[in-house]
């Protein structure tokens, strides 16, 4: 088992390396000159050239990539002579556009994204899974058909549409909630909740719709298994059959899906964050693309991908705990 984990971690690191290379090359072929973006309108070619040198952008591409990797592991120093700026490991780069280290910017954006993702996660897992089970137990009857119809609608509505409609009616027209303005939950819990409730609902609708279907189909598959018939033939009450024998097997694949979805969201919910002006990683990503803030784009891509890759590993390990047939070798 520990051998398996070591191998998985090694392959994880290799995967991330490959990813940095791809992202790095992708952005190096962009027509925008990152050095030109470092100063405003009244820029002389001399300043640009100096900045280019300070940023290491005059180095060959491969060496730039090497410097970037080195920065991740041991940190790096920009500039030379009296004008130096040191960026500690893990150094994701320095955003001249924003005059801040990329890792600091991402750290600032993380709390809002974290609360958005986890809150929505709890909501959609709670609703999606329980409603899915309910539908499976009433398969083919009107309750099942209603739930599946609602799920289809929820799944089809784009989140920007739901988000804007909710914002318009709940906040602007009926004034049930104040205009969203993010604060930390430790600072002002009430305002935090008032701000987050709509984004949570928007995200949860989309995911819950998917998880209802997933759970329903998983449960139906499981309840048709031979071992469920065995459980009934032992004389177990139907409740025990469903809960102990059905859920245990039926929910296992849902753990996988949930882990990956949560990790994906921790990398930023671009649309939802933008609509509700949450200062999260999603908003940061949109702005970085608008400004062609190359170091920031690379940094966010890397962090988001890391979340997903790590979540993948965790889910695989969890699977071995849940399903005794899975042996990690």
């Amino acid at each position, binding site marked *: 088992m520990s051998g398996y984990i070591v191998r998985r971690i090694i392959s994880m690191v290799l995967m991330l390396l490959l990813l940095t290379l791809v992202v790095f090359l992708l952005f190096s072929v962009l027509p925008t000159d990152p050095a030109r973006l470092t100063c405003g309108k009244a820029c002389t070619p001399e300043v640009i050239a100096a900045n280019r040198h300070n940023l290491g952008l005059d180095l060959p591409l491969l060496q730039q990539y090497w410097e970037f990797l080195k920065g991740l592991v041991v940190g790096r120093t920009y500039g030379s002579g009296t004008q130096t700026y040191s960026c500690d490991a893990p150094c994701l780069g320095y955003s001249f556009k924003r005059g801040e280290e990329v890792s600091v910017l991402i750290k600032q954006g993380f709390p809002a994204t974290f609360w958005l993702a986890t809150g929505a996660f709890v909501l959609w897992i709670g609703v999606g899974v329980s409603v899915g089970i309910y539908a499976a137990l009433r398969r083919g009857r009107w309750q099942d058909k209603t739930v599946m119809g609602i799920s289809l609608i929820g799944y089809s509505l784009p989140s920007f549409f739901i988000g804007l409609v909710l914002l318009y009616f709940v906040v602007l027209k009926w004034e049930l909630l104040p205009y969203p303005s993010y604060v930390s939950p430790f600072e002002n819990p009430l305002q935090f909740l008032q701000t987050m409730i709509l984004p949570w609902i928007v995200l949860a609708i989309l995911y819950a719709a998917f998880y209802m279907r997933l759970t329903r189909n998983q449960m139906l598959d499981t309840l048709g298994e*031979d071992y469920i018939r065995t459980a009934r*033939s032992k*004389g*177990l009450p*139907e409740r025990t059959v469903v809960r102990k024998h059905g859920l245990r097997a039926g929910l296992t694949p849902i753990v996988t899906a949930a882990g990956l979805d949560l990790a994906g969201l921790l990398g930023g919910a671009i649309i939802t964050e933008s609509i509700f002006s949450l200062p999260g990683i999603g908003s940061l990503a949109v702005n970085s693309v608008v400004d062609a803030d190359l170091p920031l784009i690379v940094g966010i891509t890397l962090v988001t991908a890391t979340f997903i890759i790590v979540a993948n590993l965790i889910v695989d390990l969890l699977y071995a705990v849940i399903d005794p*047939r899975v042996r990690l070798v």
Partner: protein
Amino acid sequence: MSTGSTSGATGPFLDVRDLRVEFPTEDGLVRAVDGVSFTVKRGQTLAIVGESGSGKSVCSMAIMGLHNRKSANISGQVILEGEDLIATSDEGVRALRGQKMAMIFQDPLSSLHPFYTVGKQLMEAIRVHQPVSKDEARKQTVAMLDRVGIPNPDRRVDDYPHQLSGGMRQRVMIAMALINSPTLLIADEPTTALDVTVQAQILELLKDLQRDFNTAIIMITHDLGVVADMADEVVVMYGGRLVEHGPVNDIFHRPEMPYTLGLLASMPRLDKGRAARLDPIPGLPPSLIRLPKGCVFRPRCTYHDNVPDGRCDTERPDLLTTAPGHEVRCHMPPELRRTIAAERLGARFEETA
């Protein structure tokens, strides 16, 4: 043949009367079991034989009350020791399942829960019917695993099903079915998924346990070898109906229904050598939605010319007694049926004489 030891009870131990199971579907009503009646005594084995789709499994699931009564129409009577299970509530039948009647299934791997140890699954079966402590249940479980021939039961009890061989898994299934000493055991093709050598061991084990517990067994199978080995009585099913019913010797040596003849003739025989071709029954089983108007077996029967006026096409034959305890559903006169059987299964008749 042994005579059942129905201690003090009047009438048979299990009495199935005119059992019908129908499933309404979008294509029409599926008559999976259409008026089946038979009885089983304690300590005896009844084999139900037939092709896939003949209704034998549906029939046994109905006895166990395992059909969802919302999606299946079930009528008739299933009287177990004087209590009609069809008229009993779902909860009432549930309390009997695993306690008074139990079932083992064809594929032991898919029939055991993959996420629980065999010990947990057996203990669960005990504790749902008996108010015993976990330790006591575990002790009973280990003893039962030992009884069904599992080596090192005190260690095997903590194994997961996938860690056991196919034969061991089926032994676990048998242990789980018999753990509360049920008086009726339904075995639905218990050896079909197993190796031939293991098959024989499992059948021996079942016979052995039957003697100990004086269990009535309903053995569902399409393997006539199993029937010959285990059964006291045989029910032959075709198209959801009972077409022939009698003591095992009558069915094997004096069969009368052409379908039973076909089943026996399609068995490979060592004594005839490889030159003798197998003699399969032509055609396919009928659709249970649109059954033929007359005899259900008519489209595949090669002897219907023997019946005048085309009655095989227009009239359902009744199940009539031809010898004590031997019932047949066929329009041909009994003498003719016996002659045909004698010709078709010549060798087998000589053995009995």
